[in-house]
């Protein structure tokens, strides 16, 4: 039987538009993890993984040295916007294989550096490389298929900005009305500025441990029950349907299968809302709601202040740190399942889901966690 793997510690920095150096961000997030984990010593950590899109080299070795860690294994993981969960999956694999019992994963980036890389990549987008262009296609296709309105999309943004107010590490400190969002600056005929997430500087760190040692670090381990990943073509233009994210759908199915659960079991979710339409598409593709009913579902959440989708404010409210977002999402679900999410807490949350995707959902990672 496969060894169980738990989340046993975490820490992070506030997401911002600061110019802080990436090694400082990584160090601060890791220091915060140690501060939150009184039973953890540097000698406990056998592997250190850094997730980032930054050009700096050898960051896992540098971070280890600065923290006084002498790991057996250390390396960097890059996979655009889902770098964070990709690194966590690697850590999981190290633990399950027996190569390590305790793994530190730290992710960081500086604002706009990831976006610059996107612009260097998939040149067949011509002069339309920026993510706002794929998001415009997705939004138009989704609205055409399901009759979704601008107000439906604005509600996603209003909900996530409001939720972010109770997240001390969130970039956005302002809640917006639906009307303000619908009147915000127009980017394309299909998108307004408040439909978009914003690239930020920041870092998140998480500690994973095997079932053999997990309770040394916490009395409330959160177990990774399911992992699903799917990589599609690097070019989103190859999709058959621009109103659906097929890699997210398949990754979700794989994660639920591994966890021996289904979408009805999920109490709380972190969804990769790079743009408002992505939240609606993702919750439908993951089976959390039936196709075409995402907007109605999110409106109910907004009207009732139900935080089961994106309680930390999502990527739109919390800000997007390419290397750290996936880790921050997993930390949020861990806090929810431990009952430590304070004002953001979803009552009686037992099972949580994380959805983290890259580059127009050309690849997706989904994780199912349980308290």
């Amino acid at each position: 039987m496969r060894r169980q793997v738990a989340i046993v510690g975490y820490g992070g920095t506030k997401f911002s538009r600061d110019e802080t150096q990436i090694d400082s961000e990584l160090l601060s997030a890791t220091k915060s993890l140690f501060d939150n984990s009184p039973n953890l010593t540097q000698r406990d950590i056998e592997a250190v993984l850094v997730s980032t899109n930054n050009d700096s080299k050898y960051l896992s070795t540098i971070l280890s040295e600065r923290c006084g860690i002498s790991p057996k294994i250390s390396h960097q993981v890059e996979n655009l916007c889902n770098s964070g969960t990709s690194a966590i999956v690697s850590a999981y694999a190290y633990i399950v294989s027996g190569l390590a019992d305790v793994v530190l994963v730290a992710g960081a980036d500086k604002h706009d550096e990831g976006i610059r890389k996107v612009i260097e990549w998939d040149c067949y987008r011509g002069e339309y490389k920026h993510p706002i262009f794929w998001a415009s296609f997705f939004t138009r296709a989704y609205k055409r298929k399901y009759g979704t309105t601008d107000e439906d999309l604005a509600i996603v943004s209003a909900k996530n900005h409001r939720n972010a107010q109770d997240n001390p590490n969130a970039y956005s400190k302002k809640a917006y009305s639906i009307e303000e969002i619908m009147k915000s600056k127009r980017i394309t005929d299909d998108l307004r500025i408040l439909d978009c997430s914003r690239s930020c500087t920041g870092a998140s760190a998480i500690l994973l441990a095997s079932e053999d040692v997990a309770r040394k670090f916490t009395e409330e381990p959160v177990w990774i029950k399911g992992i699903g990943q799917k990589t599609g073509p690097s070019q989103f233009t190859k999709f058959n349907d621009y109103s659906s994210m097929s890699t997210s759908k398949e990754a979700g199915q794989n994660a639920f299968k591994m966890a021996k659960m289904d979408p009805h079991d999920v109490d709380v979710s972190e969804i990769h809302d790079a743009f408002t339409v992505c939240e609606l598409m993702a919750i439908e593709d993951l089976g959390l709601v039936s196709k075409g009913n995402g907007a109605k579902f999110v409106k109910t959440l907004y009207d009732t202040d139900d935080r089961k989708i994106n309680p930390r404010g999502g990527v739109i409210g919390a800000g997007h740190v390419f290397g750290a977002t996936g880790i921050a999402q997993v930390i949020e679900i861990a806090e929810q399942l431990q009952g430590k999410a304070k004002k953001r807490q979803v009552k009686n949350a037992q099972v949580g889901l994380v959805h983290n995707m890259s580059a127009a959902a050309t690849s997706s990672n989904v994780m199912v966690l349980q308290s």
Partner: protein
Amino acid sequence: MNKFESELERGNFVTSECSNCKEIVWPPSDFCSKCLGNVKWRDVLKNGKLLEFSIKDGKIFGIAEFENKIRVISTLKSSEIGEPKIGQDLILENCGFKDGNYSFTSILAL
């Protein structure tokens, strides 16, 4: 600069095609993604169709598909008033490569 880019710089839109199984290899590559055979280069037929579009500051752009496989994002020109239609025919008017950036412009057919 690779073969695709050097041709694009001259205004030629080309693709790689497998010499063995005749599969269009897109995005262009040195070997066939289906059988890993060697490729040859040829011009792309300029008649295509529109798969999706959006508009920024009055400028229309969209996903153009050629030969039922090759897809790029193209600036779109039209003599018609109003929005384009999904599936509408188009013709590649020009393409280029400057300062590391590709560009494609197509004319929507009436």
